[in-house]
Structures are given as structure tokens and as C-alpha cells.
């Protein structure tokens, strides 16, 4: 078979044209130990992060390690991802590394670190496609939120009960199939009838803007990566209508 070497009239490799030159993380601390921790987080190396944190805990306050080593390291990873330098797995591995480091610091503190807010995540009843939810969980964890992960195939009543019990600032729902996303308006209606008007961010393969904005509380999440910024808006006081108006439409 003949293969054409000139493909310019057939397709355009936009990925080659926009390839970002690889950049490393910025220097975030003049302290050697804290910089080393940030580097380990940015490398996504859980084992080395734990070693570096254990070593630093002999000299430093756990909160200093968290706020001046672990979190700044993760922030650098988020920046590089935003800029198109890092891919998702690097963010997930870095999130795992940061969480492992925070766990060690919490043990030393004797209490859990105060989180920005609680968020409940779930995948719709009848649906087992939860990779999107896993990504949302990792990104929210990485951004300092407490994630209550209800898992996959979660019945409507279980979601509602969890919201009443935990009082989250935001609920997320993931669905790949059109026949499972029909659970979302039912959940929203139940929450609304109880006057529990939290933003309900819905996303996933079959889920579309028209569907989600067709019921109260619903905000369409186009990408998993939007979740931390949406949660950040809620912390700044945005209610579900404002969130919808900013992210949808």
C-alpha cells in the first residue's frame, strides 16, 4: 500500500504545533527541606515524599511542612497542568504524594488538618463508570477539600441521606449513560424539597448542559478539572444560581 508522506491536506497535527516546552517547578522555598518536599510532591513520588516529610518532622512544625512544603508543591503541579505541561496522571500521583505527606503531619499534630469544606461525590445508580469521579476526587483532595466518596451505583436515597448527614458545600454526580443520569433531577428535587439548596454539579459522558440546567440546583460540569474552581466559588459565597450563570450558558 502506498502511504502519503505529505499529510498537510489531510489533517493538521495541532498537538505538534502547540507543544509546550517542558518546564520544571518554580523554587517555592529557600529552606532546603521544604523545597525537597515540594520537589518530591511535584515528582509524584509518594515514597520519597514520606521520607522527606518524616525527616523534616524531626526539626519542623507539621503545619509549616504542610503549608510551606506540601501544598506549595501541589500548587506548582496544578499550575503546570493548567499551562499544559503536565498530564493528568502526574497530577494524580502528586496528589497521592501530598496526601501521604499530610497524613504523616496529621499524625504528629494529633488531629486532622482543617479542610476547606466537605464535598460529596457519587456515580449515578445503575452506572459503574466512575473514572471521572475518581479524577474529581483526586483534584478536590489536592485542593484541600474533604471528599466524601459514595462510590458507584449509588441509590438516590443514599445520596440524599449522605447530604443531610454531612452537610456538604457541594454535591457531584457522574454518569456515562443517558438512562442513569435520570437519577440526578430526582436527587435535586428531594434536596430542594428539604430546603437543602446545595449546588449539584453533574458531569460525565452522556450528561449535557441542557439536561442539567433543566432542574433546580443543577450545574453542568464539562470537565473534571473544573470541580476545584467551582468549589472555590462556593467558598466565596456563590449559590447554585450564580455558579450556573458563571459556568454554564
Amino acid at each position, binding site marked *: *500500500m502506498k502511504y502519503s508522506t505529505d499529510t498537510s491536506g489531510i489533517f493538521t*497535527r495541532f*498537538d*505538534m504545533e*502547540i507543544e509546550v516546552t517542558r518546564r520544571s517547578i518554580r523554587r517555592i522555598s529557600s529552606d532546603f527541606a521544604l523545597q525537597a518536599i515540594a520537589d518530591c510532591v511535584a515528582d509524584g513520588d509518594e515514597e520519597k515524599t514520606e521520607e522527606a516529610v518524616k525527616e523534616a518532622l524531626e526539626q519542623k512544625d507539621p503545619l509549616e511542612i504542610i503549608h510551606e512544603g506540601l501544598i506549595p508543591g501541589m500548587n506548582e503541579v496544578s499550575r503546570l497542568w493548567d499551562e499544559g505541561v503536565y498530564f493528568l*496522571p502526574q497530577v494524580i500521583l502528586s496528589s497521592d504524594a501530598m496526601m501521604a505527606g499530610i497524613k504523616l503531619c496529621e499524625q504528629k499534630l494529633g488531629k486532622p488538618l482543617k479542610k476547606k469544606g466537605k464535598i460529596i461525590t457519587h456515580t449515578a445508580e445503575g452506572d*459503574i463508570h466512575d473514572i471521572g469521579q475518581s479524577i474529581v476526587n483526586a483534584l478536590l483532595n489536592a485542593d484541600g477539600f474533604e471528599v466524601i466518596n459514595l462510590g458507584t451505583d449509588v441509590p438516590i436515597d443514599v445520596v440524599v441521606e449522605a447530604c443531610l448527614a454531612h452537610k456538604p458545600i457541594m454535591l457531584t454526580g457522574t454518569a456515562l449513560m443517558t438512562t442513569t443520569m435520570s437519577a440526578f433531577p430526582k436527587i435535586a428535587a428531594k434536596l430542594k424539597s428539604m430546603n437543602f439548596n446545595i449546588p449539584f454539579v453533574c458531569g460525565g459522558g452522556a450528561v449535557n448542559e441542557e439536561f442539567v440546567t433543566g432542574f433546580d440546583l443543577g450545574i453542568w460540569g464539562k470537565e473534571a478539572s473544573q470541580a476545584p474552581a467551582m468549589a472555590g466559588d462556593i467558598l466565596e459565597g456563590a449559590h447554585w444560581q450564580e455558579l450556573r450563570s458563571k459556568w454554564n450558558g
Partner: protein
Amino acid sequence: MKLSDKMAYESYADMMFGTAIKPVTTKHGLVIGGGFVIPEIVPHPRPGSEKTLKTLMREFERANFDALERCVLVGHPAIVIENEHISQMTNNPDWGMEITIQTAKQIEEFKIKYGLKAAYRATIADIRRPDRVNLRDSEATAKVLESFEKCAEAADIISIESLGGKEIFDYSIIRNDITGILFSEAILGGRDMEWLWTRIVDIAERKKCIAGGDTDCARSNTAMFMAGGFISKDIPHTLAALTRAIGAARTLVAHECGATGPGKDCGYENPILKAITGMPMSMEGKSSACAHPDLCGNVIAAVCDLWSNEAVAYHNMFGGTTPAVFAEILGYDAAAMNSAVALGFQKEFQACLVNSDRYRGPHGFILSPDNAWHIGKAIVENSRSMYARSKAAAFKCAELLLGDPNLRITGYEKESLLGYLKVLESLPDEENDFIDLCMRKYKNVNGFKPDSYGLQ
């Protein structure tokens, strides 16, 4: 189970759309892989229609009728209708059965009234969630097998998109972990498929139905969709391509257990399977843009026998309902390929399909007939274990990706690929040693149940 140790096709040059070395004939008399490409339409019910059996039957009755009617309207001579079960249809095996019987009747009516040749593929939903139930012994497993029994009575073809290994795969793919991907596909997926497909083939033989095939959708398509297009940043395309090659060795198990094809449409690994088995395969590409984008819209048709749309939700378009519109589109695609055969231009037509996407990205490249054949050859030449052949497929895939200067890949994609190769090279030679390594590494992954795979 004997692992394949030879290629059905002696050369990739012999592989062509519409023709398979081992065609199959359905109970309605439709020959698949016998010289013509046939459209395969997959309608999906609207949200809310799953409420009751009555509403769901009505939805499928309309959707399937619309597709059959459009074929007659525009003169498409043959069609396969596939209904992929939504969970309600497998959770209530009678639902799946009723819809199968209803569709078989519709097909018969169109045959009597117009002479339209059609067949029905029932794809059972794999409701066995690896992280929740024992894949071999659970209520969900019993329902899956009962659904196969009931649907096989009236369906022409039965299939499934099996989920074994998905819990480890999902954990691994977002962590850039090629070891976990290999474990989930070769060991977990392979073992689950052998267990499941032995039973499916037994049912199909008893019910005089065709055991079609499986797909690596739950793993390789997840990777391909995450790799996305040219501006996506979820995972590298090179990782998705390696996953596809590894996944081919897994999907092949269905045919080693006795499935005869046609393979499932969303199995983008099917060109590799066709090269090894000589069986007819269903494929999807540009025609499945209604369900998802991909970078191999035309090349994937190069050796197809059925040409499918993956899934389209039932609703109205200007030109009619979606099943009608997509049946028309698929049928015209098939007509173009069949015209090429009639004129003796099939090689030229195939070259156009391949050149459209061969260098568009890693997936299109490795699924070009020549490269798909070479990956298949690596699989059959390493038939001593599932692990050996899956790893060999990955090495061959990487060798091909790095070996053609016309395939451009970004610096990061290349660096990632070299990293995966380094990891693969560091893995043990023997399957048992690999399993020991992975059992230690993944024993604490949420929901992983070694018992589901006959592992301790």
C-alpha cells in the same frame, strides 16, 4: 484454553473490508464477512424510557423499526441491529428477552414484507461490578448468565463488554502505571474472560445462536477517550496505544473460547483480532462521532465486516429519528465500500481510508492493517502465557510507534513511551513471578478481589 499460535492471514495485504476467512451465517440467513460490508445500527433508549418494561419495549420497538424502515426506504439490502442492554434489561432478564423477541419479530416482518436481510445482536450488560461482587459467584453473575440464556433463544448474535480487571485498570490508568494496566488486562481480564466466555459459548451452542465476541471497551476505550484529541491532557496517546495492543491479547480470549465473530463494534483492537482469527469483525469510527470522538475515523474501516455507530440516543433530527438517520449513513458508507469491491478498486479504496488517519495519531497508526497484523504476529509468537503475549504486543506496539519517522509524536509523548518501555523491560519473564509482584503491589487497591480471578 489453548492460546492462539498462528495467524489466520498470512499477510496483511490479504485483509480487506467485507471479507473474512471465516464468515458466519445468522439464523436469519445473513452472511457476515462473506464479501460485503453490512451496517450495524445501535440505538440507545432515551432517559426515562427505562421506567417500566412497557415503556422500554415501546422505545426499542420504535427505534429498531425506524432503522429497518429507513433501510427499505433508501435501498440498503442488509442490516444488523444491536441493542446494548441498559442495566435494567440484564437486572431483569425477562426484559432483555422480551425486547429480543420483539425485535426478532420485527426483523421477520421486514423480511417477509420487503425481503430485507437483517439480524439482531443482543449485548448483555456486564452488571458484575468487580469492586463489589465476586465475578464468578454473585447474584449479578447469575443474572448475566440467565440473560444470555434467555436472549440467545431469539437473538442471532450474543455479546458482552466484560469488566474483569477494571478495578485495577482504573486505578492504574490515572497513575500512569503500565504494570497495573498489564496486570488488569493480561491476568485479571484474561482470566475473567476465559471463565465467562466458556459459559457464553456453551449457551450459544445450545441455543443455535452466534457467540459474537467481546471488546476491551472498559479498559482500552477508557484510555483512548482519556487521551482524547490533540489538545487533551489527561493521558498520553502513546499510553492509550500500548493499552490497545495489550487489550487485543485479552479480547482474543473470547475467540479462543469458541466465539466465532462478529467481534463487538467498540473493540478498536478488532483489526488485530481479525488478522489472528480470520473471523468477521464489527468496527466503528467516524460513524460513532455521535457517541465519542476518535482519531481513527476512516482507517478503522479498512478491514471491517460490520460498520457501526457505537450508540446513538433515540431522538428526532431534521432527517428523521436518529436510528433512521444513522442506519442511512452507515448503509451508504457500506455501499461505498461494496462499490469499491464491485469495481475491483477495493485496494485503492482501502488505501484512502488508511491514509486518512495512519499518521493522525498513535491509535490510527497501530490499527492500520499492516501494523495491526504485526502486533497480532507478536501475540501468536508468544503464546506460552497471557502475560507473555500481552507484553509482547506492547513491545511490538512501541517498536512500531518509534520506528516510522512519518508518525510524529510530541516530545512528552515520546518521553512517556520510553518510560513505559523501561518499566516493561524491568518486569519478570515468567507469568507467576509477575502475578506475585502485582499481588503485592495491588493487594490494597479498593475493591480488588483476587478470588474473582481464581487468584489467592
